[in-house]
Structures are given as C-alpha cells and as structure tokens.
C-alpha cells in the first residue's frame, strides 16, 4: 500500500490500495474515518451550488449531440428509412449495430449490482450506482434503434401483443419478439433495482436539503424512507431477491439478442457460440464504459477515496477476463467454420477477415483481442491515463465487432450477384453520434443531481459498520483501525 505523509489531521493518506496482502483486507474507503465523511463527500456533489466547469463543457457537448439525434430521428421519420445507407441485402446496418452496442454497454451495471452482490464482492459498492445508472441510460439508447428502424414508427406498437385493427398478434416463435420482451423486462428490472438501491440515499439528500424545492423533490422520491430496521429487513431481502432475479436476466438478455442472429440461416450468424460470446462481449464493453466514465467522474467530483484505484484495477481485471473470452470466441468461430466443412460458413469467415471489410475486422481484433491483454501488467492496470485510453479503444472495438458481425455477413451471402457494399449516410453517422449525446446528457444530469455513489452501501462495508468494531484489538485489523477508533469530528 502506498501512503503519503500525514495530512493536516495527522492521518496517513493512502493513495494506492491495490496491493494484495494475504490475510489482510485492503481498505475500500480511503482516508475516511466516519460515516459522516462519506455522506458529506457524496452528497456534496449533488448539493454544491458550484458546478464544476468540466460538467458544463461536457453537458453543452452532450446537449448538442442530443439535438443532432432528435434532428436525425425526425428527418428519418418524415422522409423514410431511405435516408439511411442500408438496402437489400444489408437490411440491418448502423441501426442494429448501435442497438447491440448499447445493450452490451448496459450489461455491466447489472453485472456489478447483481452478480458481484451475490458473490459478496464488497468493492462493488463504490461503483454500483454509477454502473447501474449507466445501464439504464445505455438501454434507453438501445431502445431507440429498434423503435426507429421499423420504418413506420407510428406502428411500433405492433411489437407488443396489443389488440389492433388487423386482429393479428405478434409472432411469438420469432427471436425478434423475444427481444422485445427481454429488453423491456431488462429495462424495467434494472430501473427498479437502481431506484430501490437509491431510496436510502435520496432520503439522505432529503434530510440534508436546505431549500424547499430540494426538500420536496428529494422527499417525494425518497418515499418517506426513515431507516427503520423493520424496513431495512425487508429491503435487504428485496435487494437480494432482485439480485438473484437479475443475474439470470442479464445473462438472458444478450443471449436473446444473439438469437436474433443465431437462429437465422445466414452464414456467419448461424452459430451456437453466439449466446455466451455475446454475453462476454457485453460485459467486456460494459466494464470498459464504466472505466471510461469513472475515471473523469472521480477526478471532477473529487471521489478518489471512494472510487479507489483498487476499484479500477478490479474492473480492468474483468475487462481482461472477458476480453480473453471474446478473443477465444473469435478463434473458435473460425475453427468451427473450418471444422464444419460448410463452404458458405468457411467463406463467410475468410471474407470477414480478408474481404471488403477487412479493415473493420482488423480494428475489431486489434482493439478487442490484443488491447485487453495489456491488462496482465499491473502497471498498466493501475495507470489512470493508460486505462482510460484502453477503455476507449475497447469501446471502439466492440462497436466494430457488432458492425462486422452484422454487415459483413449480410453484404456477402449466398448469391454473389446480390452482394453489396454498405456505405453509411450522414444520417446514419448523426444518429450514432446522437445516441452518445443522449447517453452523456442523462449521465451528466445523474452525476449532478443524484447520489453518484451508494452512500448507505459504502457505509456498510466500512470497518466501523461492524457492530463489534473496536472490541477485538488483538486481531489483524487492529493496527489499521486504531486511528479510526477515536472519534474525530473534523471532516476535512
């Protein structure tokens, strides 16, 4: 553990908590001794009248892109899908690429909040709120694309089993309809999970609020939470149930998305490896996006003691693991294409790597297979500038992965006379960039007005939260906890 010399309060300041000492738990909350300090640190971000200038710059850019999204969508609706570059045989291109990309991003949040919760990974508390919010905003972005790509947007309710004038129903044997159910369930459940987890923190903001408007706004959304232990009992049980329900859900969502491709007959899509491969890719890109967002956010809002280097290190490890799975899947796809003996399948993969989209494939492999392997080195895993750069690279790579899967397979299918080369139009590109505008607008609003870190949950993992804390001074925690046993009323 790297420490700096004592600060003004006579405490050593820990800056690096990434070292592994057997038999000792690395602290997850640094340089904070009291619960009050955690509250103060997180709540102040939402309370301060002085918004960081970086926030305004980011928000202005995001709003601009959001405007572009609105414009592109309106243009599409008023003119028709011809404004996009896609055409038979490439009937899906940027729209579904963006859809799969955003749904994938949306997987890290639930993974952190649900799966890591079930595995009792306490470090999740520093980043779970953050990642859950990201999930919800990413799924919002994802939801736009299937909605607008149908052509006649005003008929989009035909996706749902609602009685209509044709007296017809959606076709439940189609994976496209499973997708409707999977994504809408995922959005609903992750929103519930996010909101349920936020209620105690909204109550914190309510109790600290000074102005009447803030009191009312936070008070309404805190639903009258008063920290009653009889409530906490049911709340914790509900949270565990939500985690247990979300775990299979998150795995099912991207599996169902992959069924859109895997159940078709198209070479390059018709593979059984798709569900696990898509889930691994989703987690991979989702964690990269969490790193992309966490690095600037902890800097701008001064949360380095709560989103510590150890959190980032852990996330980079997950990027490494899932990136390796993705690399394995790429290799296995090629192997099976050869091993199957199917000439169309073989052609599809050779064409993918060396055909007209070879550059997209090269970007995909270099970003997704080679880059994450750098995370084997601890120096890279714990270097803020490098991890930020690599997380961007992974995001780009994962966008290209979806592009490669969708477009190369469609552009060169069975009949060479109908081959096509897809070129995006400015509307395609504008819509893609605009979705980032929506994502970042929502995210920046969240950072500014809501508790960015799960305050109550972070308090739970502090050593002071143990009711028997300070009773056994002879155990291995003693040295580390000694200074915090004395009550300090001096929050920095």
């Amino acid at each position, binding site marked *: 553990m790297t420490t700096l010399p004592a600060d003004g309060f006579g405490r050593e300041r820990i800056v690096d908590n990434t070292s592994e000492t057997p038999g000792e738990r690395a602290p997850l909350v640094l340089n904070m001794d009291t619960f009050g300090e955690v*509250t103060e640190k997180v709540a102040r971000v939402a309370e301060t009248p002085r918004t960081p200038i970086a926030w305004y710059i980011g928000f202005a850019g995001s709003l601009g892109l959001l405007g572009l999204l609105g414009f592109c969508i309106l243009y599409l609706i008023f003119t028709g899908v011809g404004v996009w570059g896609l055409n038979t045989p490439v009937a899906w291109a940027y729209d579904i690429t963006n859809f799969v990309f955003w749904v994938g991003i949306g997987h890290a949040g639930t993974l952190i909040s649900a799966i890591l919760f079930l595995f009792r990974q306490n470090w999740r508390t520093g980043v779970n709120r953050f990642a859950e919010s990201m999930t919800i905003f990413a799924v919002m972005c994802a939801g736009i694309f299937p909605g607008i790509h149908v052509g006649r947007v005003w008929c989009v309710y035909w996706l749902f089993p609602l009685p209509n004038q044709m007296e017809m129903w959606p076709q*439940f044997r189609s994976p496209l309809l*499973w997708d409707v159910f999977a994504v809408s*369930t995922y959005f609903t459940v992750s929103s519930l999970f996010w909101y349920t987890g936020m209620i105690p923190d909204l109550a914190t903001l309510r109790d600290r609020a000074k102005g009447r408007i803030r009191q009312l706004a936070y008070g309404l959304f805190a639903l009258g939470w*008063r920290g009653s*232990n*009889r409530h906490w009992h*049911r709340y914790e049980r509900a949270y565990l149930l939500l985690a247990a329900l*979300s775990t299979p859900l998150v795995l099912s969502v991207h599996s169902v998305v992959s069924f859109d491709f895997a159940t078709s007959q198209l070479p390059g899509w018709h593979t059984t490896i798709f569900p696990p491969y898509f889930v691994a890719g989703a987690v991979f890109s989702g964690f990269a996006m969490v790193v992309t967002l966490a690095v600037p956010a902890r800097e701008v809002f001064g949360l380095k003691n709560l989103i510590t280097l150890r959190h980032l290190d852990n996330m980079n490890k997950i990027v490494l693991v899932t990136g390796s799975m993705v690399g394995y899947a790429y290799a296995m796809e090629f192997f099976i294409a050869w091993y199957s003996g199917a000439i169309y399948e073989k052609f599809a993969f050779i064409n993918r790597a060396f055909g007209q989209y070879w550059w997209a494939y090269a970007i995909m492999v270099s970003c997704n297979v080679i880059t994450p392997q750098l995370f084997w080195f601890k120096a890279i895993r714990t270097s803020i500038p490098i991890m930020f750069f690599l997380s961007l690279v992974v995001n780009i790579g994962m966008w290209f992965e979806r592009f490669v899967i969708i477009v190369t397979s469609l552009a060169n299918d069975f009949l060479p006379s109908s081959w096509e080369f897809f070129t995006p139009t400015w509307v395609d590109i504008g819509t893609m960039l605009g979705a980032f505008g929506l994502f970042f607008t929502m995210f920046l609003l969240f950072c500014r007005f809501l508790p960015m870190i799960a305050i109550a949950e972070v308090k739970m993992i502090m050593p002071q939260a143990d009711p028997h804390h300070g009773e056994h001074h002879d155990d291995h925690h003693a040295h580390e906890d000694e200074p915090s046993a004395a009550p300090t009323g001096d929050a920095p």
Partner: protein
Amino acid sequence: MTSTQTTIPTQAPGGAPGIDTGDPDLRPAYGLIAEFESPGEVLKAAEEVRKAGYRWWDCCTPFPVHGLDGAMGIKPTILPIMVFFAGMTGTIAAFILQAFTNASSLSIWALVWVTGYPYLISGKPMISMPAFIPVMFEVTILFSALTTVFGMFTMNGLPRLHHPLFNSDRFRKVTDDRFFVVIEARDPKYFRSRTEAFLESLGATAVEEVRDDDMTEEMD
C-alpha cells in the same frame, strides 16, 4: 459535523419544523427517540429494549446493521414466498398469452373482444414450447421483480409523505451517521419518565420526545 453530546431535556422539542406558534404540548406524543453514535451501541440497546418487553418500538439506522434483526427479534419476511408465487403467475400468464394468441382461435373478452390467430410457422407445432420459453422466462422475472419491489414497499407502509419522526430535527441525522432507538407512546409499557430513564441508562447520547401531528392515522 459537530455532534451534540449533551442530553437535551425532553420537555423542549423546540426547533422541530412545523411548530411555529402555540404550545407544542397540545399535540400528542408519538414516542421517545434515543440517539446512539455507533452500530455496536444501538445493537446492545436493541437487545435491552426487547428484553424489557417493549413491543411498539424500532431502530432507525443509516444502513442495515448486522445482527440488529436478531437483536430486535424481527421475524423473517414472507416476501420471498410472495415473489415465488408472482413468478409462477408470470410463467403461466406468459404461456397462456402465447398459446392463446399464436396457437388458438378462441375469442375471449379481455377489456375488448380478442381472438387468437393460429400461426403455422415452418411446420412447427402450434404449441411450440421451446420457442415459448424465452418469453415465459422474461415474464417470470418481470412479475417477480415487480412483486419484490412493490411488495416490499407495501409491507413497509411506504411511500408516505410524512411521519411523526420527521418532526425531530435530531432525527435527520438518521440518514447520515446516527443510530436511533424509537419507542412509541402507544406501547403498553411506555411511561414517559420511566422509558426516558431506561433509554438514558442504555448509553444514549440524547433522548428526545417526538410529537405527533395527527394521531388518527396511527390509531389502529
């Protein structure tokens, strides 16, 4: 971030929001709150309050304190059982939805008259179970999650816009770093001075009486 270490006389609930004029004593007492500074203290206090035989009481904490459920003698919630049945309802509902819309020609009344439409897709059986399973799974999760959250809130008596405890300024720290034991006035063993002395003996840093604005809601 200063902590009040002194015991505030309980006759003075002054400073509570909503009391601007008149005698605060005109309002009925909701109960006594005792403030503690650490999870360990509130855990010990909870043990004592339960042993003393109080029934209408609670602990309010900024986060769930490990072991407090046991110390308070809280019975396990029936929420998981509710969720199980909700999930099963979802499974069956999704199956019926798919079988009705895609594999039957029945007419039923569901707000409006609707008729099933048997689709024959690539010669698959009408009731294509494998194809129906993804939607059945998703609806199961959806029903379960909705029941989890709304069941939890309903059983907790939330949302509510106000609670007598919010009349106390001191109580605002419950979502920050203070731990409270609350004994309600309706408890048969509640006797203002005796309960107050009892709470002080448990090591509370402060004991305060909280007034209720509206007793009718709590009369049950």
